[in-house]
C-alpha cells in the first residue's frame, strides 16, 4: 500500500508521422518531481501518448493536473480535466467530467484522488470537449495492478491476481487511435472543425504510425512520441498485451502466426458470476472505442510476427502503404533477452 503522487501538465506540441508530416496536438506532459520554477518551461512539450500511469489496488493516488496553456494557441483558454475511464465507483468530483464537476482553467491546479479497487487495463483522457481534446491527443494508458502483485515471484506476476491464470513474463500496452490531419490543422489555425466530418488518414499504435512503431532509439523527430511498440520476447514466454482503443473507430487487430488468448476485457477478468472461466481464443481482436482487452500470447518459435489491422486500409499513412496500425513481435531463442524491468518499452 503506497501513497502515490503524480503531476501532469496540460499543454500542446507537435508530432511527426513517418511521411514527414507534422501535426499539432494537445496533450499531457509529466511534471512529477519537476521543481515549481521549472514548470513553465514544460509548456509546449506535450507527449502522445501521455505518460503511463501505473497504480496498484490498495494504493492511495493523488494526481495533480496543472493547466499550462497552449503556447501555439494563446487565444485558447480551454480548461482541461483528467478522466479515469472505466474506473469503478469514483465520486463525481474526481471523475473529470466538466459538466458534472469542475475543470481546470489555464494557470490553475486541481488534485484528483483515486483508490484503485479493481486490477486491469484502463485509460485516462481529458473530458473537456472530449471529441476535440481526445482526438487532439490528451490520452494515456493506465494499469492497475492486483494487490498481491510481485514481479519477483512468477506466481504473483499476474494481470488479475495470483490464481487467476493470468501469469505473464513480459507485458506491453498498445494504445490504438486515429489521426484526422484536417481536424488537427483546423484546430491549429483556430478554425471550426465539423466533427461529423471526422475521417482519419493515419492509424496509430502508442501515438506512432508504422514504421515509426519499430523505432526503438530516442529520436529528435519523435521526441514528443515516447513510446515505440516493438514487442520482444523469448520463445516460450507468456506475453501480456494490454490493448486500449482510444480512437473513435472499431479496430480489428491480428498477429499473423500467433493466436490470442483473451483473458480480460474492460479491466475485468473474464469470469462468470460463479467463477466460470470465460477466457477464449481469437485470431482477430475486434473491439470498439473506449474498450480495453487483455491478451496473452505464448510464442514458441523464434521468428518475426507482424501485428496489424485487418481493416487493411488502416495499414497506411495518408494513403501510402505500408504504414499505419502495424508493428512486429520479435521472438528470440529462449534465454536471449534479460527479464523485462517494467511494462512497455
Amino acid at each position, binding site marked *: 500500500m503506497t501513497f502515490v503522487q503524480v503531476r501532469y501538465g496540460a499543454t500542446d506540441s507537435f508530432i511527426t508521422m513517418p511521411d514527414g508530416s507534422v501535426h499539432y496536438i494537445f496533450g499531457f506532459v509529466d511534471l512529477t518531481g519537476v521543481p515549481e520554477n521549472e514548470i513553465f518551461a514544460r509548456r509546449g512539450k506535450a507527449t502522445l501518448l501521455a505518460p503511463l500511469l501505473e497504480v496498484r489496488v490498495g494504493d*492511495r493516488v*493523488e494526481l495533480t493536473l496543472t493547466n499550462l496553456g497552449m503556447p501555439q494557441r494563446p487565444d485558447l483558454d480551454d*480548461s482541461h480535466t483528467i478522466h479515469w*475511464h*472505466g474506473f*469503478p*465507483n*469514483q*465520486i*463525481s*468530483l474526481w*471523475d473529470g*467530467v*466538466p*459538466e*458534472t*464537476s*469542475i*475543470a*481546470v*482553467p489555464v494557470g*490553475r*491546479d*486541481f*488534485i*484528483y*484522488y483515486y*483508490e484503485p479497487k479493481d486490477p486491469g487495463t484502463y485509460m485516462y483522457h481529458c*473530458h*473537456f*470537449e*472530449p*471529441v*476535440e481534446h*481526445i*482526438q487532439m491527443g490528451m490520452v494515456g494508458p493506465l494499469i492497475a495492478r492486483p494487490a498481491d502483485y510481485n514481479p519477483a515471484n512468477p506466481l504473483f506476476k499476474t494481470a488479475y491476481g495470483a490464481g487467476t491464470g493470468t501469469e505473464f513474463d513480459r507485458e506491453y500496452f498498445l494504445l490504438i487511435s486515429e489521426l484526422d490531419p484536417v481536424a488537427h490543422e483546423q484546430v491549429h489555425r483556430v478554425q471550426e*472543425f*465539423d*466533427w*461529423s*466530418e*471526422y475521417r482519419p488518414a493515419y492509424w496509430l499504435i502508442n501515438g506512432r504510425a508504422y514504421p515509426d512503431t519499430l523505432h526503438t532509439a530516442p529520436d529528435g523527430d519523435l521526441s514528443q512520441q515516447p513510446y515505440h511498440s516493438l514487442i520482444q520476447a523469448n520463445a516460450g514466454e507468456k506475453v501480456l498485451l494490454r490493448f486500449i482503443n482510444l480512437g*473513435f*473507430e*472499431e479496430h480489428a487487430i491480428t498477429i499473423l502466426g500467433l493466436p490470442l488468448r483473451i483473458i480480460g*476485457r*474492460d*479491466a*475485468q477478468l*473474464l469470469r*462468470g*458470476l*460463479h467463477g*466460470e472461466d*470465460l477466457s477464449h481464443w481469437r485470431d482477430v481482436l475486434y*473491439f*470498439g*472505442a*473506449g*474498450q480495453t482487452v487483455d491478451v496473452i500470447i505464448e510464442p514458441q518459435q523464434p521468428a518475426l510476427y507482424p501485428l496489424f489491422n485487418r481493416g487493411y486500409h488502416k495499414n497506411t499513412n495518408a494513403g501510402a502503404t505500408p504504414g499505419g496500425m502495424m508493428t512486429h513481435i520479435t521472438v528470440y531463442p529462449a534465454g536471449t533477452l534479460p527479464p523485462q524491468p517494467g511494462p512497455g518499452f
Partner: protein
Amino acid sequence: MPTQATANGSPTIHLRAVDGYIITPDGASIYIWGYRDETGRAAQLPGPTIIVNQGDTVTIKLTNELRENVSLMFPGQNGVFRLTNRGAVPVGPIYENGRLVSLTDYVPPRGTVIYQFVASQPGTYIYHSGTEINKQVPMGLYGVIIVRPAGFDPLDPATWSAYGPETDTEFDREYLLVVAEIDPVLHEAVRLGKPYRPSTYRPRYWTINGRCAPDTMLPDRATYLPHQPYGSMIMAEPGERVLIRYIGAGCDAHPLHPHGNHTRVVALDGRLLRNGTQDLSHKHFTVLVGPGQTYDQIFQWDGLGYDPVTNPIPTPIPNLRNQAIGDVGWTMWSGSPYLGQKGDIPIGVTSLNVTGEYYFMLHSHSEPQITNWGEFPGGMMTMIGIFPVGTLGPEVGRLQRNSRANSTRERR
C-alpha cells in the same frame, strides 16, 4: 409511457404508421416517419414501447397512414403470422414481378394489417418496418418490445427481474436506451419526395430514445418535445440494481460507455447469457452495440463512501473561483464533493442539481457521435444520476402501465 398489455394473455395493440417532425437541440426540425398508438396524433420517435408478458399471444394491428407500403417485423420472435379472413398465414418476404418489395407482409396506404405471435421468451426486442428498410427504418419506423418473464408482477418488486427467478437479473429500476442515427439529407429527400442514395448515408445527429443531448436529460413527455416522449436520464440510489436495456435501432455501431461503474451484461438479443448452469454474464465499461442488437445489463453504483462526517475526502478542495464550472452555461454538479450535500455554485452558472446527487455521463465513446452536426455537447449522451438514499420515489425508473409518464394523455 409504454403500451402495457392487459393481463388476459392476449393483448391487442394498435399502431399507426404516420409522419411528423422531431426537433434537435440546435434548432433543426426534422421530418420523420414513425409509429404512434391511440394516444398520439403524429409520429413519435421511437415508436410506443410495447410491454407484454411471456406466453402472451400478441396481436398488433398496423394501420398505414403513409403514402407507400409499410410493415412491421419482429426480430427475435418466432412464428409471426398475419391474420386474414381465411385464417392465420405465416409472414414472409414479398416478391412482386421478381423484385423483393418487403421483408415481411406489408400493408398498402390506408389499409390495416394484423400481425400475431406468441411472446415465448422474456427479454428486450426491437420492432421496425420491413419495407424499404434502408429508408423507412432510419426515417424512424422503429420501437421496442419488452417481454416480461413469467411470474412478473408490476405491483410486486420482489418479482422484478429481466429473465425470471434464479437468473440473477433482479432489478430495482429499469431504463430503455434505444440508439440510432439521423442523416438529415435522407429526411429532407423523403419530405420532398426526392430520390436518396442509401450509400451516401452520413449521420449528423445521434439519438438516444429519439433525442439528442442535452434533450436526452429532459423528463419523459417533456412538452417541448411532443413527438420525442421518452427521456433517457437514468436515476437510482446507491446500491440499487438498475436494469439498462440498450437497443441498436440504427445502421451503425455505437460504443456506449457509462461512467461510475461497469455494467454486467446479462443478456444479448433477448437471450440470457447462460449455458445450463454456467453463467456467461460479464462486466464491461463499454458495450459496442451493433445494428439490431439488444443488450440487457445490471448497473450498480456503490461509491467510495465519502461521508462528510466519517470519511472526509483526503484532498483540499480549491477555491472554486479558481476552477472552471459550467463552461457550457450549466452544471449538474452540486458544488459539494459529498453525496446529498450542496455547495456554492459560481454566480451566473445554472445548477441543475436537485439534492446533492452525483451525475455520471453515459455516452458513445465514438466521440463525434456526442455532437449535434459536429458541435459538442450533443448527440448520444445522457447522465446517470445517483441520488441520496431515500430521495427517489418508487415511480422513478418504472416501465409499467399507469406510470407517471403513461398517465399523461396528449390533448387532441
